[in-house]
């Protein structure tokens, strides 16, 4: 395997903030039925070389918020608010030229379904090389050599010949590797992986996750991993952010969120996950009800229609006022139950079922 040097020079003086900082990001879509509040005041930070896992149900705003980082939403139908800082560049206010140069170079994205996400009309080599040619002003031969090197790096055998194959000539796992090779061709600082393993079977899934972890160790890439699979998060992420109805409802380190979850929705997520070791007679504990409509989100806590515990709060605040994340730092969640109540419910009723 060829070695690749990490040749991007680090800026002389890094600003005081984190590597990536999303502040109060809101994404709204104008549709025929009204305005969809897809993401509502989302904030998170990401340090260099770490992985943030974003989990949540379908439609909770995971992908939408990350597409905003790359500026991939159609401005004609989308309203974006807030700030996204990538080191010292603000992305929401950046012009199309800035974003175009950034995409694929400093920030790259891996999509869920590698079959539909790769162009069926071009060879994988060309698709990888064109990114490199665009951002590095490389010549044809150089970019091709780079494409072969990348295919080799992500573990595709006979990269030299396979570079001229089309995506449909690869298996699902290999296609996702191609996708990863394409995303990493310019050594991005930030890699957004949008359900990178959802379309793959479990063994391939593990390989892909290991590959991402290896690449992160080698090149110090920061990764945002979007998934609804908590197993994937436990395996690869450092930080976790749980999204519900376009909002962050709990965030913290993997240990904190997965071992001592505080938000009733996180309990639900963990409870819905089947375990090989658990008693087969013990039913799963699904979250009852369905995710709320983002056209008209419920007032107050968006989770209250599905929550078992509003009565414990003592007032009707769950139904009227949106809970903010608290405490300000560390393991935070957005729920009106007191910390003691959450611990009691979790230890008493939830933990044994997980």
């Amino acid at each position, binding site marked *: 395997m060829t070695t690749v040097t990490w040749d991007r020079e680090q800026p002389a003086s890094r600003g005081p903030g984190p590597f990536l900082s999303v502040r109060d990001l809101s994404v709204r879509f104008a549709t025929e039925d009204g305005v969809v509040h897809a993401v509502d005041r989302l904030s998170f930070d990401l340090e260099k070389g770490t992985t943030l896992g974003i989990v949540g149900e379908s439609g909770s705003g995971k992908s939408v918020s990350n597409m905003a980082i790359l500026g991939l939403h159609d401005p004609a139908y989308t309203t974006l608010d807030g700030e996204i800082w990538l080191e010292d560049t603000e992305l929401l206010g950046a012009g199309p030229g800035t974003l175009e140069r950034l995409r694929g170079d400093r920030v790259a994205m891996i999509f869920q379904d590698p079959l539909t996400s790769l162009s069926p009309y071009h060879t994988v080599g060309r698709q990888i090389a064109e990114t490199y040619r*665009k951002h590095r002003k490389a010549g044809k031969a150089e970019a091709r050599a780079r494409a072969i090197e990348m295919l080799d790096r992500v573990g595709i055998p006979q990269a030299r010949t396979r570079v001229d194959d089309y995506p*449909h000539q690869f298996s699902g796992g290999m296609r996702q590797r191609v996708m990863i090779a394409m995303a990493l061709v310019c050594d991005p600082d930030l890699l957004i992986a949008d359900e990178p393993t959802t379309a793959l079977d479990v063994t391939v899934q593990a390989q892909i996750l290991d590959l991402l972890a290896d690449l992160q160790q080698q090149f110090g890439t920061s990764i945002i991993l979007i998934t609804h699979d908590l197993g994937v998060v436990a395996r690869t992420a450092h930080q976790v952010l749980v999204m519900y109805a376009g909002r962050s409802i709990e965030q913290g380190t993997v240990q904190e969120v997965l071992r001592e979850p505080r938000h009733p929705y996180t309990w639900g997520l963990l409870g819905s996950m089947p375990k090989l070791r658990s008693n087969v007679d013990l039913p799963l504990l699904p979250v009852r009800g369905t995710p709320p409509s983002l056209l008209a989100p419920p007032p107050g806590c968006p989770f209250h229609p599905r929550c078992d515990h509003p009565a414990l709060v003592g007032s009707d605040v769950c139904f009227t006022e949106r809970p903010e994340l608290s405490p300000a730092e560390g393991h935070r969640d957005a729920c009106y139950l007191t910390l003691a109540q959450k611990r009691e419910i979790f230890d008493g009723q939830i933990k044994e079922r997980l």
Partner: protein
Amino acid sequence: MFRFLLRRIAGAALILLIISAVTFFLFYAVPRDPARAFCGKICPPANLALIRHNLGMDDPLFVQYWHWLVGIFAGRDLVQFGACPAPCLGYSFATQETVFSAILDRLPVTVSVTLGAAVVILTFGIGTGMLAAWQQGRPVDKVASASSVIGASLQIYFVGPILVFFIVDSMGLLPRPAYRAFTENPLDWFVHLLIPWVVLAMIFTANYTRMTRSTMVEQLAEDYVRTARAKGMSGPTVFLRFAWRGAMIPIVTIFGVDLATLLGGAIITEQTFTLHGIGELAVRAVQNTDLPMLLGVTLIGAFAIVMLNIVVDVLYAVIDPRVRLA
């Protein structure tokens, strides 16, 4: 690829055979006797029988068909008309010329009208459709979509004479539409056919505008187009290299069909501008119960269709590597 072509050409030959046979036998289902037309006003039965014999019409139907078929490759000797060298499609009952030479005379007219119109159709149809897709939802899109509908609802026999009246008669900008041999004077050929091209294109262009716009919009929403944007490809690159590639397939499909239809004869256009093409030949053959001519014209039309179908299939494989020719 070679095997594909071989198979498709064999298939095409079979289709042409079937079409010619169906036309041939259907002709005899029509209660009209071409021999009577040759016989004249006072027609003794003996004369009629002789003419029938000379035309080869006293043989059983399938024998007649067989003779016709063999004649295409080997030529034949017709008692009524004389020798007919291969490829022999027989003599026209009406004009007594060989069908093949009649078609050969008319073909340049039809091909000129078709190809010129095709260029106009593709340029304006695809161009406007692309523009509309690029400006999706904006005023340009709406104007382009609306104007293409207006174009489509116009009729050749209405717009044609009006354009001729204004452009030729009133303003004298162009000569009256006619066919001039391309080989003699390309410019002459061009100016004489410009009005028919534009009028013919008006009818078809709308289809292409709409198709181009809708498939481009569809393609632009595809995952792989999003990927292209996510890796920093510029707007025009995404539009042309990625989305357009996928949008080409339905356009090639309908273009193949339209082109074949036009090559089979654009009858209304030819009538409107008094151009003497294949379409006129076909109409006259039907009116005159002219079996050899009818068969010849049908065969030419069918030939254009099956050949263009093969070309379209090959183009599919060129555009989309997932389509294998085997």
